[in-house]
């Protein structure tokens, strides 16, 4: 069935899509920012696993420099009250934030596609039940619910991840259902049905590949939002336990030194904002490129 010209055609489509993204300056900036965050996260995590120090100073060691030093060549983001190097602390915190962003969005994508396409293809009462359930979860105030779930589980990065995963999927289910409904009217779905394929096979073989692009664009935009929310929970002291650093936690513990060393809380805040902007620009850019192609 698969004819040989198809992969080539697909490759050229991917190529023209990439060139469209490349032409879009905003998407390019976004891709660069996201790239830097990813590479930093991966390198920092690998280094952590093997116990290699890649940061200029040990992130946890105190008095590696003068206390509350302003940014300089030896400490580009300055030092905190305990004389720890802020730049090193920011680098080692990167894997947490990136991992939470990707895994929460990944799980939401999976759960959303399953619920949304089952609702669209089964229809009837099951559809009604699944979508009303989705509506109710969607209407819950995310941060507040994540907060109480997190309090019950106790602080910790994994617990935060789980708390967010429990409530993050509803928009994905809605989007997937809408897209799956559009696909369900296509002729190839009818022919798959006629050839005796069951709902599950139709969903995995025909629906998922056809709705994946829309879903992935939404997911890209969404990773930034999850990072923002995680930073909030971390700011509230629900993620890492001291002395291990996290961006949100750094802002909250450094905000007491706002008058003496304003850069201390400002720098981790800027890092969070830059990451979120990166994902937004990339997501917007991919969407524009898709609309154009």
């Amino acid at each position, binding site marked *: 069935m698969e004819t040989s010209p198809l992969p080539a055609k697909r490759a050229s489509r991917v190529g023209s899509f990439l060139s469209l993204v490349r032409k879009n300056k905003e998407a390019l900036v976004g891709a660069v920012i996201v790239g830097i965050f990813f590479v930093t996260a991966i390198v920092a995590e690998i280094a952590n696993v093997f116990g290699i120090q890649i940061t200029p100073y040990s992130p946890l060691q105190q008095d590696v420099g003068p206390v509350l030093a302003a940014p300089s060549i030896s400490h580009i983001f300055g030092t905190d009250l305990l004389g720890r190097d802020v730049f090193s602390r920011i680098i080692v915190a990167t894997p947490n934030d990136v991992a939470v962003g990707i895994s929460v969005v990944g799980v939401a994508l999976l759960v959303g596609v399953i619920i949304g396409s089952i609702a669209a293809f089964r229809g009837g009462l099951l559809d009604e039940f699944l979508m009303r359930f989705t509506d109710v979860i969607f209407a*819950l105030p995310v941060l507040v619910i994540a907060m109480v779930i997190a309090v019950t589980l106790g602080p910790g990065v994994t617990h935060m991840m789980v708390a967010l995963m429990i409530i993050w999927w509803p928009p994905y289910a809605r989007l997937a259902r809408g897209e799956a409904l559009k696909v369900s009217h296509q002729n190839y779905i009818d022919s798959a049905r006629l050839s005796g394929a069951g709902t599950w096979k139709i969903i995995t073989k025909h629906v998922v590949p056809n709705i994946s692009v829309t879903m992935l664009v939404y997911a890209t935009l969404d990773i*930034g939002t999850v990072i923002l929310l995680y930073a909030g929970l971390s700011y509230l002291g629900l993620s890492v336990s001291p002395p291990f650093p996290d961006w949100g936690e750094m802002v909250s513990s450094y905000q007491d030194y706002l008058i003496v060393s304003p850069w201390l809380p400002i720098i981790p805040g800027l890092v969070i904002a830059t990451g979120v902007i990166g994902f937004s620009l990339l997501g917007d850019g991919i969407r524009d490129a898709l609309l154009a192609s």
Partner: protein
Amino acid sequence: MNLLSYVLRRLLFASFVLLAVVTITFVLSHNLGGNVIVAWLGKTASLHPQLAQLYAEKYHLNDPVLVQYYYYVLGLLQGNLGFSPSRGFIPVLTVISQTLPLTLQIVFFAFVISLGLGALLGVVSARYGHTKIDGGIRAFYLAGYASPPFFIALVLLIVFAYGFKLLPSGGAFDPSVQQPTLITGIPLIDSLIEGNWAYFVSGIRHAILPSLALALVTFGVVTRVLRSSLLEVMHMNYIRTARARGLDENTVFYKHALRNALIPVVTLSSIILTWLITGTIFVENVFAYPGMGQYVVHALLAQDYPGILGTTIVFALVIVIGNLAADLLYVVVDPQIRLG
């Protein structure tokens, strides 16, 4: 009749959402510190055996789960949210009645600024679509949207409170001014009714920075949606007709295009409201503003479970009521729902 069924459907939905929140808090309250009583009296529950016993009897805490659930919901309907250890064991409801009005004040101002600034920039953005002005506005709202609320709050604090010394850095009012007597419960309104200008001015001055911090995070959604909806509307046939009738461009833009383009903005108000209310948790903490957001953070730090669960329910209630109001407002502005 359609209108009635729409309103009834929304009301039914709102009660489902509240029921979901209450069920979640009920389930979670059973998983705190190994004992349900901890969810009502906090970690130090064992220090108050008499109170604990009273609670166990009143809320049937030794009975089957379903019976407990019934009494839990009944208790909530009667306003019982437990006692707050982080506030010296006064009822959570009392703490909320003191803090919620202050939070609502800044949420109200933030909502107004958010819609006003958002709409203004959306209009300018669409008017000068695809120019440098449009690009500048996009950069501004992207930065706002991408920044955590606590970060924007810190920047405002540095610039306006510590830098230019224009506005106070914390609190809800100047402690030296006389507080208004309780009339409506909302201090700013009460001080207006009483003619207590000193408090009113002080209250407004203390509310500006927290409200602005919240608004800077949310206005971008309004700008973005209004811009694209305006650009879309400008291609519609009725706009061409209006132009063909010889109306000048300003009349076409503001009288014909803007009115219709504003409809999608109204649907956004419920999202914005949710963001603003949850944003208070961070912003109030930065500005030491004694509202419900600051209470949650204190409760979190002190592991004050009754405070955390109680504020969760009240936050959800406020958000559900706000969303309901936005849904009803939508009926007013969009004739398609009214007639359709």
